[in-house]
């Protein structure tokens, strides 16, 4: 979709774009943190509708993409074991591990199930007391309350055959890592709306102040994204660096306190490896000591699995906004959604997949919105 007429309110979209154009007097580089926003931006050709002065850099906010290769390998190892029912969100089925994916494990006889909610996995554990049910608990702050509730309920129900393979990540430490990287060009952020709908905005003023960047909490629909960009550019032009909420219909300053309490009861902050990026201090959550019995890594003794990532895949640079997907030599040649080298090409929220799907084969000036060469599952 590249024509402004296809927006749900073309007049408003045009007014927002006109205002962005009128406001931007010099080049600005903004990062949208969330993969859902990246997909929406590419799908609707927002980056091509913007004035030349405003560049969007795609951030690392795709939970599927940043799940470390070694964790994928641990998932594959556990899922292939007899007696295990391995439950996952559908997004993870085709994320490549070292030599296969969950889809293939299923084809080879592993009992892999797709669930809509972690509580569905819990129900499977209740109904199958003679099987070990493992849920692949990935995601950002948006998903953590759901996964925390599942393990909390498991304890309440005294279910001993349920565990989580946890790979949770947090946005604020990632913003810090991006801003302290030597090659950083980011001057402002569109903060992920649904992360903030859970966590609120309390963690962001300190980041805005320390790095002197506007942080605008932004939604996922095209008009939401344009409004987030408009506010970020307005702040930059005025020399401001504040936290602003452009997604008030879904985000309160204090987020969802009940959800945050549940996260804090079940999880504790830990260092976490991000696929393609490496270790980001204090950027993840793991189960607290009180819930450690539900940790699948220990239960299945896979804590020692270590994996090297393929050198050809430049997903890490893409995830940090250092290169565009089309700058990777493997893009569209040895790396396609059918034969992905890294998760950014397989996940529907990955920047590489979005570029491929909407035929940005020749860089950002190519035509957006044409029919994809391969069917995928875009999620805005």
């Amino acid at each position, binding site marked *: 979709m590249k024509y402004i007429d296809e927006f*749900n309110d073309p007049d408003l979209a045009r007014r927002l774009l006109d205002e962005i154009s009128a406001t931007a007097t010099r080049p600005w580089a903004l990062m949208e943190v*969330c*993969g*859902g*926003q990246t997909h929406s931006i590419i*799908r609707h050709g927002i980056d091509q509708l913007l004035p030349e002065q405003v560049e969007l850099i795609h951030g690392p*906010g*795709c*939970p*599927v993409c940043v799940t470390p290769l070694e964790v994928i390998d641990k998932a594959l190892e556990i899922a292939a074991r007899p007696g295990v029912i391995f439950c996952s*969100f*559908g*997004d993870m*089925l*085709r994320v490549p591990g070292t030599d296969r994916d969950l*889809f293939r494990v*299923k084809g080879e006889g592993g009992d892999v199930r*797709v669930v*809509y*909610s*972690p*509580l*569905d996995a819990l129900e499977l554990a209740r109904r199958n007391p003679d099987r070990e049910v493992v849920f692949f608990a*990935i*995601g*950002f702050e*948006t*998903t953590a*309350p*759901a996964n925390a*509730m599942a393990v909390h*309920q498991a304890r*309440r129900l005294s279910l001993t055959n349920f565990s989580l393979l946890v790979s949770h990540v947090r946005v604020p430490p990632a913003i810090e890592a991006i801003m302290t990287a030597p090659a950083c060009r980011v001057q402002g952020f569109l903060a*992920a709306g*649904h992360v903030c*709908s*859970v966590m609120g905005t309390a963690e962001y003023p300190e980041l805005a102040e320390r790095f002197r960047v506007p942080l605008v909490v932004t939604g*996922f*629909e095209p008009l939401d994204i344009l409004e987030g960009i408009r506010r970020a550019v307005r702040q930059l032009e005025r020399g401001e660096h504040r936290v602003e909420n452009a997604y008030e*219909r*879904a*985000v*309160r300053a204090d987020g*969802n306190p*009940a*959800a945050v309490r*549940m996260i804090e009861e079940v999880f504790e902050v830990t260092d976490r490896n991000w696929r393609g990026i490496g270790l980001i201090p204090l950027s993840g959550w793991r189960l607290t000591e009180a819930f450690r019995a539900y940790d699948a890594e220990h239960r299945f003794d896979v804590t020692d699995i270590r994996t090297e990532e393929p050198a050809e895949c430049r997903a890490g640079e893409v995830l940090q906004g250092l290169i565009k997907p089309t700058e990777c030599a493997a893009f569209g040649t040895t790396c396609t*959604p*059918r034969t992905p080298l890294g998760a950014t090409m*397989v*996940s*529907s*929220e990955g920047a590489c997949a979005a570029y491929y799907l909407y035929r940005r084969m020749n860089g950002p000036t190519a035509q957006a919105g044409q029919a994809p060469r*391969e*069917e*995928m*599952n*875009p*999620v*805005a």
Partner: protein
Amino acid sequence: MCLAVPGKVVAIDDSADPLTGLIDFGGVQKQACLEYVPEVRVGEYVIVHVGFALQRLDEESALASLKLFEELGLLEEEFGDAWEQAAKEAGTA
């Protein structure tokens, strides 16, 4: 994963632990956990992510989002068959 879909609460099961409701997403109905929005009432709208309501939402915003999601085919993708999708992507379907 990032998609959080607005839906209308059509029923609440007060006896369920955790608190559970039936949510209508533009015709598709699914159960969702309401434990994080315990004050929600039947007829109100919530944003649902992986089977959990995260925030209440006003009706106008919810309907506008649902209309757009439907036009873009996102609802079908969100609630569709992930295995079918994976097979298609893997080139085996």
